């Protein structure tokens, strides 16, 4: 078997696989049926006015309408704000927690699991719990603030706070994963660097700035990309907590699309999904290229 594989690999000029092509068939069928066909169908249906049973071809009408959607412009802006805020906070807090949790502290293993625990909890559950906690009149948060004499805002009901409140909950829930990635990144830095720095008499801050920060770069890239993609297409937490409200003040692209679908505008919402795909790709792909190129140059 090994010999046959080796022979096959040597045959011909271009790179060839040791396996016959029909080995790909099962995976190709699954990929084709579950991904390729729906993608093509989605592209087609995004060009139609699609009701429950019939569809009428209307060209790019849905796209024109989607871009005229008043909620869309604000939705795009909210999506950007949400993605940048959650991604940024996860990088900063994740890094800080990871440094804390890789140092010699008491109950390190326990604290690591506590930080990671929210990641394991259902998003909807977290959302509904925080809706209760953030209730402006009866919620625990404002009652606690009231006890120390602070008049807490309507976290989810005040239009200027709603989106940021949801973003904070997202950070609370997601920072554990960022911390985990950073811990892995920091632990994998060879001890020799730190020993050499110690010999040179480097301070803790210099250690952080000159060793941890640059050498944990792959971890940073992963955290930024993952949390940015997560933030751009975030939906479940926002829907569980505010449903895009009050009014449209915490609507993101995904919830705008979902509402179109809810209203029975299937063609329009499919067009919205195609737009969302393009937007996410357009932001994340160049960013990924940029961050990885920097790594190579280093």
């Amino acid at each position: 078997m090994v010999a046959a594989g080796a022979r096959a690999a040597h045959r011909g000029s271009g790179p060839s696989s040791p396996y016959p092509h029909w080995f790909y068939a099962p995976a190709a069928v699954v990929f084709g049926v579950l991904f390729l066909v729906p993608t093509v169908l989605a592209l087609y249906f995004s060009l139609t006015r699609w009701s429950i049973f019939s569809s009428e071809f209307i060209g790019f009408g849905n796209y024109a309408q989607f871009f005229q959607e008043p909620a869309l412009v604000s939705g795009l802006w909210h999506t950007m704000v949400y993605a940048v805020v959650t991604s940024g906070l996860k990088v900063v807090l994740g890094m800080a927690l990871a440094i804390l949790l890789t140092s010699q502290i008491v109950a390190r293993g326990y604290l690591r699991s506590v930080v990671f625990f929210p990641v394991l909890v259902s998003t909807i559950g977290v959302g509904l719990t925080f809706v209760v906690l953030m209730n402006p009149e009866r919620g625990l948060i404002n009652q606690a603030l009231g006890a120390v004499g602070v008049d807490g805002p309507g976290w989810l009901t005040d239009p200027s706070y709603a989106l940021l409140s949801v973003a904070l909950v997202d950070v609370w829930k997601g920072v554990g994963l960022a911390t985990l990635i950073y811990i892995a990144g920091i632990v994998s830095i060879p001890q020799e660097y730190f020993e050499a720095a110690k010999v040179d008499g480097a301070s803790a801050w210099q250690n952080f700035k000159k060793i941890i920060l640059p050498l944990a770069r792959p971890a940073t890239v992963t955290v930024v990309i993952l949390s940015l993609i997560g933030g751009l297409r975030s939906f479940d937490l926002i829907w569980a907590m505010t449903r895009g409200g009050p009014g449209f003040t915490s609507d993101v692209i995904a919830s705008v699309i979902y509402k179109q679908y809810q209203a029975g505008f299937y063609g329009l919402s499919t067009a919205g999904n195609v737009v969302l795909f393009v937007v996410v790709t357009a932001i994340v792909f160049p960013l990924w290229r940029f961050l990885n190129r920097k790594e190579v140059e280093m």
Partner: protein
Amino acid sequence: MRFRTIAAGALAAATMLAGSACSAGSLGSSDDEGGGEGGKVTLSLLVDNSEDTVRAGEQLAKDFTAKNPDITVKTETRPAGTEGDNIIKTRLSTGDMTDVFMYNSGSLFQAIAPQKNLVDVSDQAYNGQLDDNFKKTVSADGKLYGVPWGTFSAGAIMYNRAVYAKLGLQVPKTWADFMANNAKIKAAGKVAPVIQTYQETWTSQLFILGDFHNVLAAEPDFPDKYTKNQAKYGTDPAAVLGFQHLQEVHDAGYLNKDFASAKLDDGLRMLAKGEGAHYPILSGTIATIVANYPDQAKDVGLFAIPGTDAAKNGATVWTPNGLYIPQTTTGAKLDAAKKFLAFVASPDGCAAQTKASAPTGPYGVKGCTLPAEVPQVAKDLQTYIDGQGTSTLALEFLSPVKGPALEQICVEVGSGIRKAQAGAALYDEDVKKQAQQLGLEGW
């Protein structure tokens, strides 16, 4: 995200094919199913999850089984509002609907393509027994598809009579009188003049939807022009008033303090206990007050949302919801489902609903009587319905055009996020999508 959504869409499409194939097959084999004379049939029934509906559904199921021991009816619930619309549409389009289901009449009924999805019941004996106004709202192309569930109700202002008696107020006939009452209530302190509950977004729409009697009084041809895209909320002087009223009560500081986070049940509690004076809401919700605060229910009355002209004062009325059979119900289940509809559309069906919760308005079936003891709200509503020209069907029964985002727009206008005029214009944009989806002329 995108792949998942698309995959779900493809799955839905595949199930749709499978579903239609199935029903075609079972049509052919319906003879064997009919053979099971002594066979038990279980019907599934989908209703919305409000307390009153669930109670009514269970009581109807119980009383129906008592009369037809071979058929049991199991109720399932779904959310109300746009989320419920979505569930109904998805289950219908994937062939996954329950054997019988309850859903709105009027424009929402038209939006689920009744000709393609529902079983025609025009030939049933109860056809002649149904209220004519109701029949119009569950018919398409001259065919009848549903029977009435629940009672007629009004989109009006429920008010606390104890507060009115204490402050010596009169039921207002014009908007100016209403605002004057609010000023007095606010000046007396403690009681919130107007209750709003924006956490449950659908409750925000009543100042607009319930104002339709006033719109029609000013412009009798509004529904027709509206359907043809010739009249708009943003530009019509009578129609835009509803949005302005919504903004006025917020700007004047008349709302309860927790209006942004309160829900329907909170609003009803405030009204029953006299913590709030006025609550613009559907009159059917009085059943919840009767169930939860039986001693205070007599303190709650109803008046129509006042307009500009006291002489033309009147209420905007909603017809009962409908009970429908999807075309996916076949064979023995279809026969059983038809029997269930006949039961609901009979005086026995009305009696079962009355047993479940106090009726809050007239039923849609001729021969149904209301008990002697009805809530004050039902009495007040009856006066409007009996009067000459003092009631109008809501716009959603006269025109198929209704935008899906009205509730969010109302929350914005009613919370001071958006101005009334801008809100009305935004709603006109929203409506356009629905009209195009329905393929109406002139859009």
